[in-house]
């Protein structure tokens, strides 16, 4: 097992390298330059822009720039943003807490809500509750989330006036006691978490429902019932645990997503997260920030995959990984 993980880590280094190479060249070959977004006005002369291009080293050939970037990366230096000359890594670190907070909360809501609703539908299959939830899920899956967000803001923020409209903190945040701060952030998070998890809940409910239906119809469930086990125990102790296996796979896949952010949601809710940072960096051709984000996301995705694979072995005894030597002997 240890050998397997070690081998996976060694293998992922050239993959990571390839990802950086690809991202770098795609980003650089996209038309446009960072200096294009410098104010387009008569105050800024073309000569001044040429000067900026020199200072950003954009006049050097592309392979030279890539190698320079790579050498800096070897020292864990991601370079400075073209927009405000601050270290790219610092800009990411500033936005990471808010992004993690939102994504982990909504992931929690998605799994809690999806599994509960899915199990409920399976247990009460073809009853009113099932039909009602299935319809709701279908509607939720089809609604454009940005529209839902605006409607939520208008209903809860303006008409009812019980939730703040946008942002992460109130103006008086700095003057609140610690519990007031938590309550303040919580109030700001209700709408973003609810809306971002809405479509996720809808999708997961369907997985959980089909998994649970299979489990309830399975031989072991029938055997348990025959043994005289109460239906509650059949559902929670026997069926649900087995029904959750495919759900765990989905959870594994969604873990790298928690450091990403949705640009549209963050824009609507004026949320200071990674999505806006990444989008704005791409639009303004802020290469150091784009590269830093893609390296970090790639590294996390790769390690997320390794962790998920390793976790399977623990979760499901049927899965075993060979350490390479065995495989040769078997074949």
């Amino acid at each position, binding site marked *: 097992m240890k050998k397997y993980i070690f081998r996976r880590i060694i293998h992922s280094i050239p993959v990571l390298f390839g990802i950086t190479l690809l991202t770098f060249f795609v980003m650089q070959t996209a038309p446009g330059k960072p200096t294009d977004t410098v104010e387009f006005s008569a105050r800024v002369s073309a000569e001044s822009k040429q*000067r900026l291009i020199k200072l950003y080293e954009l006049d050097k050939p592309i392979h030279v720039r890539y190698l320079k970037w790579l050498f800096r990366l070897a020292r864990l230096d991601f370079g400075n943003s073209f927009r405000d000359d601050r270290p790219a890594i610092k800009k990411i670190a500033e936005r990471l807490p808010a992004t993690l907070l939102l994504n982990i909360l909504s992931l929690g809501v998605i799994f809690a809500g999806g599994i509960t609703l899915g199990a409920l539908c399976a247990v009460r299959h073809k009853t009113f509750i099932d039909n009602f939830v299935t319809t709701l899920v279908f509607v939720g899956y089809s609604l454009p989330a940005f529209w839902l967000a605006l409607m939520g803001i208008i209903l809860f923020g303006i008409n009812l006036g019980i939730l703040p409209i946008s942002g992460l903190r109130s103006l008086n945040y700095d003057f609140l006691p610690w519990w007031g701060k*938590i309550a303040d952030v919580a109030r700001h998070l209700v709408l973003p978490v609810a809306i971002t998890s809405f479509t996720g809940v809808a999708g997961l409910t369907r997985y959980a429902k089909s998994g649970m239906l299979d489990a309830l119809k399975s031989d072991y469930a029938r055997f348990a019932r025959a043994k005289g086990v109460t239906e509650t125990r059949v559902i929670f102790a026997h069926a649900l645990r087995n029904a959750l296996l495919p759900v765990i796979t989905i959870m594994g896949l969604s873990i790298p997503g928690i450091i990403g952010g949705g640009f549209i949601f963050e824009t609507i809710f004026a949320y*200071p997260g990674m999505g806006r940072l990444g989008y704005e960096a791409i639009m303004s051709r802020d290469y150091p920030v784009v590269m830093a984000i893609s390296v970090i996301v790639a590294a996390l995705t790769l390690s997320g995959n390794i962790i998920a694979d390793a976790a399977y072995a623990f979760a499901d005894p049927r899965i075993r990984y060979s350490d390479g030597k065995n495989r040769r002997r078997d074949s």
Partner: protein
Amino acid sequence: MRRAACRAAILFFAIVSYEACAPRRNENTVGGAAKDHQSRDTFVRAMLGDASYLNPLLASDSASGDVNSLVFNGLVKYDRDLNIVGELAESWRISDGGRTIKFRLKKNVLWHDGKPFTSADVKFTYEKLIDPKTKTPYASDYLLVESLSTPDPSSVVVRYKKPFAPALESWGMGIIPKHVFEGKDINTHPANRSPIGTGPFKFSGWKSDERITLEAFDDCFEGAPGIGRIVFRVVPDQSVQFLELRNDSLDFMSLTPDQHNAYDVFFRRHDKFRYAAFQYAYLGFNLKRRPFDDPRVRRAIAHAIDKSQIIDGVLLGIGRAATGPFPPQSWAHNPDVKDFEYDPAKARAMLESAGWRDSDKDGVLDNIVVENGVRRKQNFEFTVMTNQGNKIRAMAAEIIQSELAAVGIKMNIRIVEWSTFIHQFINKKNFDAVILAWNLGRDPDQYSIWHSAESQEGKYNFVSYNNPEADALIERGRGTFDAVERRRIYRRMHKIIHDDAAYIFLYYPDSLPVVHKRFVGPEVAPAGLGWNFRQWRAAPGKIKYAS
């Protein structure tokens, strides 16, 4: 299991919000200091994007500009009627035929950290502006300076290589403190995120992508401002800004025309203002391409476009038909210029005299062109380009498209992402026509837009306008200090550029800000709205955020 997940969520919540709280202590002390001025209110305004540098030399985005204008001062500024008056300068004298400006500085000016402001700071700012290592986009005006000397702490003498009339305006650039930046790299200096200036407001806090807070600077040389605290909130979506406004959680924002025309009930607590912005939108032709090299064709197109359709349909009536490169509130604007009237029949006749007629009856005009000795028939078809993300320009293009179709011209529309648009099409002059807008300075010098020397690749005269008379006027305008003479020069230029129709000037848009009713002081003047911002204050008894 659910309970465990719940607990994990709460734990995370607690950790992250604790982290978020970490820098609070620092700000609390500032909040404590503000308690001495309980009679002053907080002003909350929205901005669409976060600022970049709080340093007037480096920043070129409007968000940073808005903050910097309150934290920093220039030597001069524009007053309510757009006259140049002293700000850090007490007075100045122009001599030597306009080649020398001698500034006398005010003596009681303090930086926000308590150090006195002197001429050494002006010299330092100048040196940083022309230093090739400084990432400033504004160097060109200062590269014309021959020498800058500081005979004593309160005087600055600037000598130019030749007379340069916009020079005085260029000293409106914010002056930065020498004692803070000296000996360190200006591009990465921490003060670019916690600035020290001389202005009426001092920096208090910046949470990236959330808000920037400024506090009143009571030792300001112009006196203490009437507002105690300003919060710039980043709300990146304009319709969400509007919802915040309806919720009474913003005191200031800029409206779009449709928001401005919304129900009055949305503006119960806010006053709407409207004034002409220093800006114009235009349809510009590539004068190096056929058939736009022919002024008769350009004028015919001008007669075929009904500007009032664009203004009523797209701007909802909020804007004015444009006649030339100077907006109506500028002294350079020539009110006697008569615009090309909307007359499709006349346009058709003019096109016919230029050789364009619909000989094959397909509804599109055509002409015989000779290319490499081969005669062939060509339809009048061209593509207009504009940038993505500006709905008003895209809709204006559609109106122009249908109006030109009525006279037999087929116009295609292509919308391209901004950076690609500038780099691939504008800079390389690879376009037939474009719809764009210019943000203008208060000084009418538009050398970089209209002078024929500025038409190489990557420069602003990308339409390749070349009129020797206009060139001569632009050069004389730059070298003349006499106000009456300058007005004559620029009014003449307004007329020439209008008649040449290198651009079809579409409209001068209006700025549409709203301000919360509890503030007294907002007043629209030729300079716009914020010219007396230092004097704005909450009406007695109406203070909302006394902290």
